[in-house]
Structure formats: C-alpha cells, structure tokens
C-alpha cells in the first residue's frame, strides 16, 4: 500500500468501522435475520394482516400528506426568512429548529393538550365539528410538527445563495414576477425542495414519540406502524415486529438512495472538474 502522508488512517478508520459494526451493522443484521426467518410468504402474510396493513397505510399516507404540507409551508417560511427583513426575523429563524430541539415526548403531550376537545385549539375546532386529537388528523398534525424544519433548512441556504441578478436578468428579458418565479427560481430550487420533502417524509414515517399521545392508538383507526411494532414486541411476537421493522428499514434505505440521487442531480449544473 502506498504511504499515506497524514497519520491516523488505520486508527480512525478502524475505530469508525468497529463502532459502526457493533452499533449499526450487527443489530441491523439481527433484524434482517429475524425477518428472513419467517420466509417471503410468511412475511407477506404478516404484512397483509388487516391491522398491519392499516398501520402501514396510516404511517406512509399520513407522512406523505404531512410532507406535502411541510413542503409548501417550509418553502414559504424559507422564502420569508431569506427575502424579507422584519422585526423578529432572527427569533423566527431560530425557532424553526424547535422540533429538532424539543424531545418528541414533550411535543406529543403538548400537541395533545393543545388539540384535545378542551384545549386552546381543540375547543374551537370541536365546536365546528372537527376532531383532531385521538384521530388520524391528529397523527397528521404531529407529523407536520416533526417534519417542519427539514424543508426550511434545505431550501434556505440554496435560496440565500441564489444570485439576485438571475431574477433581474429574467425580468429585464421581459418576464413577469410570477414568470421569473415559476421558470427561474423554482427550477433552481427543485433539488433542495425534493431533498427536504424526502427528509420530512422519512422522519414522519418513522416518528413515534410525538404521534402516540395524540393518535389515541385505536387499532385499524389511528394506530401507526412503529406503535404496532412496539405492541407486537410486548406480545413477544418477534417475527411480526421484525417483519414490520424490515419494511420500514427498506424504506429508510430507499430514502437514502433517493437522497443520494438528488444530490447528484443537483450537481448537474456544477462546473466541470478542472
């Protein structure tokens, strides 16, 4: 092997591999092994059970809807934070990360208290016949909460780095404001927006702590997949838990792949290497 100039290659890579091996790879292998133990047919059967199907549908469907809402709201907030100057902007900017900083259990009970039929928001909504807490809607609200920072934080730096001259060029060429937004800004932002969407989606699919309090957790109704895994574990149904876990793990890998592809896609405008 060629001599390395800087020291510590073996030590640092070795430690990294050992940590990853013991903390990530070995346990994940245990999951894969357990899930494969039931066989493909068994796996499909477990997943096709009505309760499992309903839980997966809710987790993925709810996460998708929440990620969509977060994409729109997140882009709006990023836009406002980057483009406009107003009192309190810095505080607002800092608070974007609140869902990262607030433990999920805390967020969960707070959202529940807020949206319960006797809560600050739950009361007026209930009077109009809308129930949030202990329904699927509540699941969605919690998923919006946890996924919110992702779109803002991926779009914000790209938007800030966007050269204002590009818009001015578009307008000097005769484009209206909305045309320069739709034809120039949005396409340039698309990789960042999709990246934010994918991250928010991944987070919401796997979310547990903030959802279980507000969801009410009625099987077939408002029970999410991670909770069903916990339920199965408590019933010592390891195979069932592993099967659900494997599905969610495959989804996590798929998201990682999509993110890597998005990264490459966003570099297609990059300068060619010298």
């Amino acid at each position: 092997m060629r001599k390395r100039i800087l020291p510590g290659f073996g030590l640092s890579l070795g430690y990294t591999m050992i940590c990853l091996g013991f903390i990530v790879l070995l346990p994940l292998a245990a999951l894969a092994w357990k899930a494969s133990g039931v066989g493909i047919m068994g796996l499909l059967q477990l997943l096709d059970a009505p309760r499992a199907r309903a839980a997966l549908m809710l987790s993925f469907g709810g996460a998708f809807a929440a990620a969509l809402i977060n994409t729109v709201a997140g882009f709006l907030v990023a836009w406002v934070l980057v483009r406009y100057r107003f009192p309190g902007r810095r505080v607002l900017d800092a608070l974007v990360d609140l869902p990262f900083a607030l433990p999920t259990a805390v967020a969960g009970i707070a959202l529940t208290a807020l949206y319960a039929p006797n809560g600050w928001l739950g009361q007026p909504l209930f009077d109009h016949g809308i129930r949030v807490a202990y329904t699927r809607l509540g699941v969605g609200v919690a998923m919006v909460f946890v996924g919110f920072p992702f779109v803002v934080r991926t779009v914000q730096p790209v938007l800030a780095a966007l050269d204002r001259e590009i818009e001015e060029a578009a307008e000097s060429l005769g484009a209206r404001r909305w045309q320069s937004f739709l034809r120039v800004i949005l396409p340039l932002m698309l990789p960042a927006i999709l990246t934010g969407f994918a991250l928010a989606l991944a987070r919401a699919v796997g979310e547990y702590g903030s959802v279980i309090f507000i969801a009410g957790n009625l099987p077939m109704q408002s029970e999410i997949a991670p909770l069903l895994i916990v339920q199965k574990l408590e019933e010592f149904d390891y195979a069932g838990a592993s099967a659900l876990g494997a599905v969610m793990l495959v989804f996590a890998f798929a998201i990682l792949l999509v993110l890597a592809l998005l990264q490459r896609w966003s570099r297609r405008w990059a300068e060619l290497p010298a």
Partner: protein
Amino acid sequence: MTLEIRGLTRKFAGCNALEEVDLSIAPGEFLALLGPSGSGKTTLLRILAGLDFPDGGEIKANGRDLLSVSARDRKVGLVFQHYALFRHLTVAENVAFGLRVRRWRTRPGRAEISARVETLLERVQLAGLGSRYPAQLSGGQRQRVALARALAVEPDILLLDEPFGALDAKVRVSLRRWLRGLHEELGLTTIFVTHDQEEALELSDRIAVMNRGRMEQVDTPERVYHDAASPFVCEFIGSANRVNLSRGARGFAAAEWMPGPAPWGDEVDRAIAYVRPQHLALDVSSAAGQRGWLAQLRHIYLAGSVAHLELDVPALKQQLEADVASEDLPRLGLRAGMTLHVSPKRAIIFPASGSEPGAETRWVWNGERAAAVVPARGERVVNGIF
C-alpha cells in the same frame, strides 16, 4: 544541499504526473520549476517535501536517500501556495510552531524560541506584528509569515509553491525582488514552482521548464529564453511566431523566405520555425529587391514602451506579430493599412516530425551569417556548424 533526482515517475489514476524526471540541484541554487498547470511541477515539489511519493525513481540529498525520510524529519521548509497558516495561532505562534513541536531533547527553551521568532520576524519585515492573527494581515504579509515559519526550523532546502500566485501585481514585483535579496543573504538552496515565466526569468539562477510530466529544458534564464530547446519551450516562454517550412528544390522554404541548407537529411521534409516578434525585420521602402514576405499592417497595439504590430501575410496564409519600440513608430513611418516587407532576423527551427532518429536537433538560424545546430535536450550531439 545537493539534490540528485533520477528517473522520478508518479502516476495519478492512469495518467503520468511525472515521467522519468532527472534533475540535479547545486547547493545554494535558486531554481524555478516552470510549466503550465498540470505539468507536474507541484507534484515534484510535494514529493521533495515528503507530502507525496513517487511510483519510481530516486532522490538523493547529499548522497543519502531522501525518500525514506518522513516529511517530519526531512528538514525541508515549505511555503504553501495559499500559505496554510494556522488561523487560530498568532503570527509569532505560527513562526514558533516548528520549534515547539520538536522532541523535548532538541527543543529550544522558551526564551530562545521567542528570541528566534523576533529575529525572523525582523528579517521578513514583520517586527511588531507578532501578536496579530493571520486573518488580520495583508496578502503580502501572510506570505512573509509563511516564509518565516518555514525558515524557523532551519531547513536545508526551501520549497515555495507558487509563492506569488495569490498576490496582486504590484506587491508581487516588490516581494519577488525582496525574496531574491533574501536568498542572496541566506544562500539557502531554494526551489520554487511557478507558471509565470516572467517570475522565473527574473528570479532564478536556473529554470526547469516542465510539460506533461517531463523536463523540457533545464538551463539559465538567458538560454531558456534565447535558445529554447524544444518547440514547447519556444511557445511557452515569451511569444513566438510559428511558421511552417517545407522542403523544396533549393532546401527548406516558407514562401519567399529560405533560411539556407538544413542540418537534416532528406528524411525530414517539413519543419517549423519559431520567430520572436522582435526578431522580425520590417522594410517599408517601396524600392525593388526587398527580401521577405509582403505583408499588410492590420493594427498597431500600443503597449507602453513596445508596440505590437499585427501583420497579415497572404503568402503564408497567416498572421504574424512583430514588436518595435514605440518611439520608433514615427521614424519608421508605420501606419495601419500600409503594406511592407517582413523577414526573420533569427529563428529556431525544429523538424516537423520529430520521430526519426537523427532528427532530434534544432537549427538555430542567425540570419544570413551563420547557423548553429544544437542538440535538443542535450541528448545527441550532431557535429558541424553550418
């Protein structure tokens, strides 16, 4: 320190950054490694510093193998292109770094370190700035901090990677004269990498011109400029007009210009002549019997003391550039649009296909008087003066 580099080869992902490079450097010499980007000059410097390793070849320092010595123990002072100053340390701490990290047996005492730092800062004209941080200095000052830091470890050899590349033009000129003065004062073997020919010509004792990982010519600045050893050196150093010659009934010719009998046998039937702009003779008289090519003067670009003339030569189907002193313009009566005759006064001519054995020579043509054949790259001697 005497450095002997033999057959040095370094491959990067299939392409050769260095190919069989030979070079010897005498003690106290100031040598420039000159070449375009990607010519391998920085790779060579990094190998000398111990930051890269060759795939083949050897380097001897005073007869000892240098490659087996780690970068840490090589006693080499290296000034990085972007200086690589430690941004979290003050100027004085940067300079002292190399002394402070020594093994305690050889580490000087606190007082001695700070005394040496003081002396060095004075030498690089930064006395009083020791407590500043690198970010608080100008580009030229940072450069000198990097130099002081490299000198602090009392290196046997000083390496500089594009030392003036990041500076603006004015600072660059004054700093390089200062560096030359410092070199004369210290007498330290110094190698610097540059892509700026002016810098190399002005500063160094010898220039090693590199291209695509090979040494094209290693010579004094005068000889590199006036006696280029290869077509690449002709084109890279200064500017040169390139004229194609082909063998006719009466020897090589480019339209009306016939330089005379060529030093090569019949196997060479085409050649390329390089003529520097100042080596083109201009004749505006309309009298009969003028020599050279008929040309039309398209433009006069006045560049301070020199004027560049753009000439259209129909017989060659190309443009030539000629330089005259600005003050000669009225005397010669030059005007854009006029026709005149041009002929080379001096040229360096290479065979157009250099693959044949025996043709690896260049033909230094000095007007009508005499022409000397000089071996290219000093590999093969062809006898006779023509």
